[in-house]
C-alpha cells in the first residue's frame, strides 16, 4: 500500500512537471521559466542564501507550531473537562474564533515590532485557536465509562491526563495542525514579505519578484512548498508513531 502511495505521488509530480514545462514552452515568457531553470536556480540558491532563508522560515513556523500546541492543548483539555470554565470561556472563543487573525497583523506589528516575535505570534495565534477548539471537543468527547474504568484503577488527575485525555486528543491535535499547516505557511509568507530581510517570503518578494529574477522567485516558491510538505509529512509520521492504534483499527 505504501509502495502504491509512493508511486502515485511520483506520478502526480511528473504530471505537474509535464504540464508546467508545456505551459512554460507555449508561453515563452521570462515570468514563467520551465522546471529545469527553476531547479537550477533552486540548487544555486541553496549554495548562496536560499538555505539560510529556508532555515529561518522553518524555525519560525516550527516554533509557532510548538508554541501553539503547548498553549492550546492544556487549555483545551481544561475547557473540555471543566464544564463551568467552558461555559464562561466558550462565548469568548465563539466571538474571536471566526475573526481572520491576519487582519490583526498591523496591530501586532505596532505592539510587538517587526522582529521575530510578531511573526511567530501571528502564526501561533492562528494555530492556537484551531488546536484549542479541537482539543476541547475531543477532551469533552471522552466517554465517561472510560474515565470511570481508569479511575477505578486508582488513577488521579495526572494519570487521567497521561493515560486518557492526552492520547484521546492527540489525533485531533495532529489533524488540526495538518489542516492549518497551509494557513500557517501562507501567513508566514505574508508576514515575511515586508519590513524584513530574512525568510522565504522576503526571498520570493524582494530577491525574486523585486529584482525580476523569476527563476529565483520560483525557487523560493518551491522551497516554501517543500517546507509545507515536510511539515505535513512530519505530522503524518508523528501520527503513525504515536497513534498506531488508529491504523491498527482500519
Amino acid at each position, binding site marked *: 500500500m505504501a509502495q502504491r502511495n509512493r508511486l502515485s505521488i511520483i506520478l502526480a509530480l511528473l504530471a505537474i512537471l509535464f504540464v508546467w514545462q508545456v505551459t512554460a514552452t507555449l508561453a515563452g515568457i521570462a515570468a514563467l521559466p520551465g522546471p529545469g531553470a527553476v531547479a537550477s536556480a533552486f540548487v544555486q540558491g541553496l549554495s548562496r542564501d536560499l538555505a539560510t532563508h529556508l532555515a529561518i522560515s522553518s524555525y519560525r513556523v516550527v516554533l509557532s507550531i510548538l508554541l501553539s500546541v503547548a498553549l492550546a492543548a492544556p487549555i483545551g483539555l481544561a475547557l473540555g473537562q471543566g464544564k463551568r470554565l467552558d461555559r464562561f470561556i466558550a462565548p469568548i472563543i465563539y466571538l474571536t474564533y471566526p475573526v481572520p487573525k491576519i487582519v490583526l497583523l498591523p496591530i501586532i506589528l505596532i505592539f510587538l515590532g517587526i522582529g521575530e516575535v510578531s511573526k511567530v505570534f501571528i502564526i501561533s495565534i492562528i494555530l492556537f485557536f484551531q488546536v484549542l477548539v479541537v482539543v476541547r471537543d475531543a477532551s469533552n468527547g471522552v*466517554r465517561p*465509562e*472510560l474515565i*470511570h*474504568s*481508569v*479511575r*477505578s*484503577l*486508582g*488513577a488521579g488527575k495526572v*494519570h487521567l491526563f497521561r*493515560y*486518557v485525555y492526552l*492520547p*484521546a486528543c*492527540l489525533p485531533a491535535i495532529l489533524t488540526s495542525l495538518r489542516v492549518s499547516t497551509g494557513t500557517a505557511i501562507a501567513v508566514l509568507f505574508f508576514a515575511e514579505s515586508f519590513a524584513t530581510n530574512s525568510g522565504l517570503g522576503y526571498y520570493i518578494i524582494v530577491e525574486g519578484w523585486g529584482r525580476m529574477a523569476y527563476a529565483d522567485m520560483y525557487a523560493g516558491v518551491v522551497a516554501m512548498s517543500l517546507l509545507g510538505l515536510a511539515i505535513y509529512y512530519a505530522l503524518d509520521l508523528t501520527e503513525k508513531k504515536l*497513534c*498506531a*492504534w488508529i491504523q*491498527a*483499527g482500519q
Partner: protein
Amino acid sequence: MIEVKSITFAYAGKALLFGGFDWTIERGDAWAVIGPSGCGKTTLLYLLAGLRRPAAGAVTINGQIVRQPRPSTGLILQDYGLLPWATAMENAVLGLRIRGIASQKRNEAAQRWLARMDLAHVANQYPSQMSGGQRQRVAIARTLAIDPDVLLMDEPFSSLDALTREGLQDLIVDLGVEGTVTTVLVTHNIEEAVFLGRKILILPSPPISSAQVVDNPGAGELDYRGQPAFHEKCNQVRQWVEELRNGSAK
C-alpha cells in the same frame, strides 16, 4: 466486609434512587444484583466503587468509609473500559503502572494474567483488533492483575454472544472458587444472576429503601446450569422480579 449504611442518593435534578438503603456483604460472598432498567443497579455499583458518593449514609469496606476508588477494588464494565490506544499488554499493566509497581514486576503479573485468560497471542494487539470476548478478558486480566479483594462487575457480558458469555461466566466461577475475592455482579439477565450469585439482590423500582435477598447456594458450581435446581431458581427469581415490578406499578 462491605456495609451499605442507610444511603440516600439522587442525581442532580433527578428523582431519588436510594432513600435509607441498607445492605451487608460478607467477605468472599458472590452477589448478583438484578432489577428493572433504571432502578439504580449501576449507581449502586458505582457507590461501592467510590465513583459516586451518597448524599447521606455511607458505604464502608472493612470498616473504612469509601470516599474515592479503593486501590484494591476492581471494576469491570459492560463496554470493557479498555484504552483504545493501548495494546492488550499495556491495558493489562495499567492498574499496576498507576500504583507505581516496578516495570519488570508489573509486566510479569500482566503476562501471567493474559496467559491465564488465554490472551498471550494478542498481547500486542489493540482492542479494535480483538473480539468482544477477548476485550472483556483483557479487562478482567487488567482488574485481576491489581489483586483485588472486591470485584465489581457492571453487566460485563451483556454485549457478548451466548457461547462467549457462558465461557466468561465459567471463568468468573473458576476465579471465585480459587480465591477469597468478594464479587458483586450487576446484570439484567436472570440466568446469569442465578449462575453467578450465591446471593441475589432483587432491587425494586426507586426510590429504594429495601430489597429482596434470595439465597442461591447452588451457584459457584460449573455444572449448576444443567441441574433442575438452577431452572427452579431462575423461575423463582423471575417470579419475584415480576412481583416487584407489578407491585411498584400498582
